Each structure stands twice: as structure tokens, then as C-alpha cells.
């Protein structure tokens, strides 16, 4: 049952890819995309490991957790986008000013 571990590793890869993009890129829209990719990676790990024991139906608890997580991440993204637009109207830039290690 190792195709499950393939997807779990893919999830960890997406998590690290998103983390890298979140730290490296300055543009706020890209940071929001990076957060979404990170959350998709975490959900992939959650669901992939839930169907490890073949045969009986996959464990539904992670599935419920991921659906809750998807709705939470869409609401966080909506708030982040509106905050970015307000910030753009207020400062004219769409980056956080002093890009100390954020």
C-alpha cells in the first residue's frame, strides 16, 4: 500500500514548497497563494495516511477534518485578500514595508 506514502510525501513537499515561497517572495498575493499551497499539503498528508490499511473503508475522521480545514482556509484567504487591498489603497504598495525576516 505504498501509493499512499507517495501522496503523503507529496503533501510534505507541497508544505515545504509553500513555506519557502511564503518566506522568499515579497508580493502579498504570492504569500497568500503560498499559504494555500501549504494548507493543501497538510491536508494531503492527513488524508493520504488515512487509507493506509486497504480493505475496510478509509478512516472518515481525517476527511471531516480536511473539509473543516478547507472552509477555514477559504475564510482566512478572503480576509487576507481584503486586508491586502486595504493595505494597497493605504500605502500604494502591495508588499510589507521592511522585509525583515517575516
Amino acid at each position, binding site marked *: 500500500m505504498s501509493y499512499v506514502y507517495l501522496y503523503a510525501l507529496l503533501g510534505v513537499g507541497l508544505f515545504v514548497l509553500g513555506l519557502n515561497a511564503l518566506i522568499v517572495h515579497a508580493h502579498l498575493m504570492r*504569500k497568500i497563494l503560498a499559504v494555500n499551497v501549504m*494548507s493543501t499539503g497538510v491536508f494531503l498528508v492527513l488524508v493520504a495516511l488515512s487509507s493506509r490499511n486497504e480493505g475496510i473503508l478509509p478512516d472518515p475522521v*481525517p476527511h471531516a477534518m480536511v473539509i473543516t480545514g478547507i472552509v477555514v482556509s477559504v475564510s*482566512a484567504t478572503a480576509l487576507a485578500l481584503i486586508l491586502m487591498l486595504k493595505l494597497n489603497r493605504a500605502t500604494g504598495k502591495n508588499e*510589507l514595508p521592511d522585509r525583515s*525576516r517575516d
Partner: protein
Amino acid sequence: MNFPTGAGTDHCKRMKLLPMELILGEVPWIVVLIILPLTGGMACFLFPTISKSLGLLTSLAVISCVWGLGWQLEEDGAQRYAIGGWGAPLGIDLYADGLSLVMVAVAALVGLGISVYSSSYFRRDKANHFWPLWLFLCGALNALFLSSDIFNLYVTLELLGLTAVALVALADGSEALTSAMRYLLINLMGSLFYLLGVAFLYHSFGSLDIAILAQRVEPSPAVWAAVGLISAGLLLKTALFPMHFWLPAAHASAPAPVSALLSALVVKASFYILLRMWLEIFPIVGISFAQLLGLLGSAAVLWGGIQALRQTRLKLLVAYSTVSQLGYLFLAFPLGMSIAWKGALYMLLSHAVAKAAMFMAAGNILAAGGHDRIADLSSITQRLPLTLTAFSLAGISIMGLPPSGGFIAKWLLLEASIQSGQWWWGAILLLGGLLAAAYVFRVVSHVFTQAEATHEAREVPARMEWTALVLALVVIFLGVFASWPLAMMEIGSPFGGGS
């Protein structure tokens, strides 16, 4: 140990229950504590015209619920409530013991102060947005302190983060928006680290409940990864030293009551989860990680104190003082004795109340003088005697001088560090106290100068000054009557028995 309230006397017999005890005993206060703020928030959202009175009413009702819960816990010890009647591995459990009771009590007490303060702080249109968000934040805090399911903690953390960001962004101005944006990104990053840790723990041991995980956990690479991820996520949200860069800007640029609730409550929520995890699931982690946390804590104490000394604006000084005071909480990890945990919890308790009073005082000064540059505060401080008394009383607790809660906490931590032979943590405590004395006195010294009071300072509503003073007096009360809160912490022995 008798609870010095009339109702909870030891020898009340079960048969002839007074009606009051009947009511107090039967009502599931643990659920009411979570549902009440949520309904209050919805009501404020539906009827914005009466949102102020609804908010105050809900804060008062939450205080009485905490009283009811305290009475119940005093009667029959730690309480576990299965939501939906399904029990731990399947459903979600709420768990209340001494530790969560103290946290909920602090949230309710400081929450009442913040509600009274902000009832006269916000103008009409801002108030319509403030009250629903604030009550949802209250509900998220109570849900977080009472839950014993690690995924449920993720959802409450997210609810807390979103409300806190929306409240910081209430203050218009590019500085507040920038810090709100950075705070939101940091929050989301921390929550995702925490969620990945939860995924590892769940798939290793098949359960999400803390109590069940505590029995099943044994060291394995997945558990080490989960410990690292969860600690990294929560330390990011608690703004421990290397990851504190987002806190000063967010806490200083937010409106005064919001920065009070951020410093007093929101930052402590992720520390509470780390403490709960550490006591139950992570004891297998070993000493090295605890020493690291202790080192980071002492670095936070020193760095925060030095930075606070160098600030030119009052709210930034108070925000850096939060960074430094949070360091004390982490000194308890390497000590690991039950006195040390009680000391850290008492420090958390008194810092929450003192810092809320300090930020309210800073808000009053800002409201009166229009600016908070420390250099020329003297003209404003002449006109605000109550606010400056509140600031200095709270400063006494931040410094850790005798009649205040801060002193009791530092005393417990000092005792633990001497008993366990790691005296250097005690040295950090004293050094931090000196730094705190320096930056508090730097502000208070402006009171003694004879600068003439400028005439154009605006009038500060009396309610805002009195709330700051009452909270500061509560900190002094915590110093004098220390036995009662310490007994409250003991219920359900969250820190393991022993001294």
C-alpha cells in the same frame, strides 16, 4: 481546603441541597461558558444599535459562569464533559481542571475590564464592528481553554487568530494595516505547523483526545516531528524571542483595548496549549528541549527589557515589555517542578491583568495628549493622576515588587530554581526585574517633574481611567491574597502531585 464562598462549605449534606446549590450543581457551566459569548456575538451582529449593552451584559454573565464552574470544580474536582454524549475517542470532550479554570477566570476578569473600557473608547461606527468580533474572541478563548481535543484546539486557534487580526485592523492607518497583515500571515503559518503536528499525532496513535494520547504516546520519529512542529507553531504564535518581530508593531498600532486584550489574553492562549501538551503528551521529550526553551525565555527577558528601554513611544515600550515578560513563562520548562509551573501560571495571571491596565493607561495618555512620545509626556501626565497611579501600580507587578502578583510568581520561580539547583534561572529573574524597573520608572519619572499642564489636552472619559485603576488594584490584590488563586490551581492536580 474550603472555598471561601458561602455556597461551597465542606459539610453541606447531599440530601438537603439548598436550591442555590441545586442550580449551581446541575447546570453544565462548562458548555454555557462557550455558548454564551457566541450567542452574545451573534446578537450584537444582528442588532448593532444595542451592541454596547449586549456586550457588557455578556461579559458580566461570563464572570458569573466562571464563578459557577469554579464552584462545581471545587465540589467534585476536575470535570470531563462529552459533547453529544459520544465519549473521548469518537466525539469531542471538554475538560476543566485547575489550570483551565485559572485561564478562564483571567479571560473573564480582563474581558470585563476591556468591555467596560471600550464601551466609552470606540465611536459609533467602529463600535458596531468591535462588539461582535470581541465577543467571538471571548468565545474562542473559552472554547480553547476548556477543550481537550487537539483538532478542536486548531479550530479555536484559527477562530482566535482571525478575530484578533480583524480587531487590530479596526484602527485605520497604514501602520495598523501593515502589522495586521503580518500578524495574519504569521498566525496562518503557525496554525499550519500545528495542524501538521496534529496529523502526525493522530495517524500515530489513532486518537485526537489529549488524555488518550497521553496514555498511548511513546517516542518514535513521528512523535519527535510532531513535537517539533507543534512547538514551532505555538512558539511562533506566542512570540517567543527569535520569533517575536511581529508582536511590538501589532500590539502598539492596535486600538488601546485591542492591544490590551492581545497582550493579556491572545498571546497566552497558544502558551496554554503548549503548557497543556507539555504536561500531558510531551513528558517523553527529555531535558534538552526544555533547556532550549529556558534559554530562549531568558534571551527574551533580556532582549525585551533592553529594547523596551530604547523605545521612544510609550505603546511600543509596553509591547516590548510583553515580549520580555513572556520570557519568564518559559523559565518554568527547564525547572519542571510543580512549584515552577504554579509560578509560571501565577506570572501569566498577574501579567495579564497588569499588562491590560498598562495598555489602558497608555491608551488614556494617547487619547489625552494626542501622542505617546515618552520624551514629552510630562505635560500630559500632570492632568491624568488616576491613569498614572494605575500605570505605576501595574509597573510594580511587572517589576515583581512585594505587594503585587508578579512578586508571588517570581518568588515561586526563584524557590523552584534554588530547590532544583539551577540557580542561573533565578539570576535571570532578578536581572529581568532590574530591567523592568528601569523602563517603568523611565515613564513614571515624568509625573514628578513640575512641567505646567498644557491646556489643549483633551478630556479622557472617567470610565476609561477608573477601569485601568481597578485592574491595577486587582494585581495588588493578587499579591496580597495569594492563597486563594494558588488553591484554585490545585484542582485536578494538572501539574502532577508533589510540592
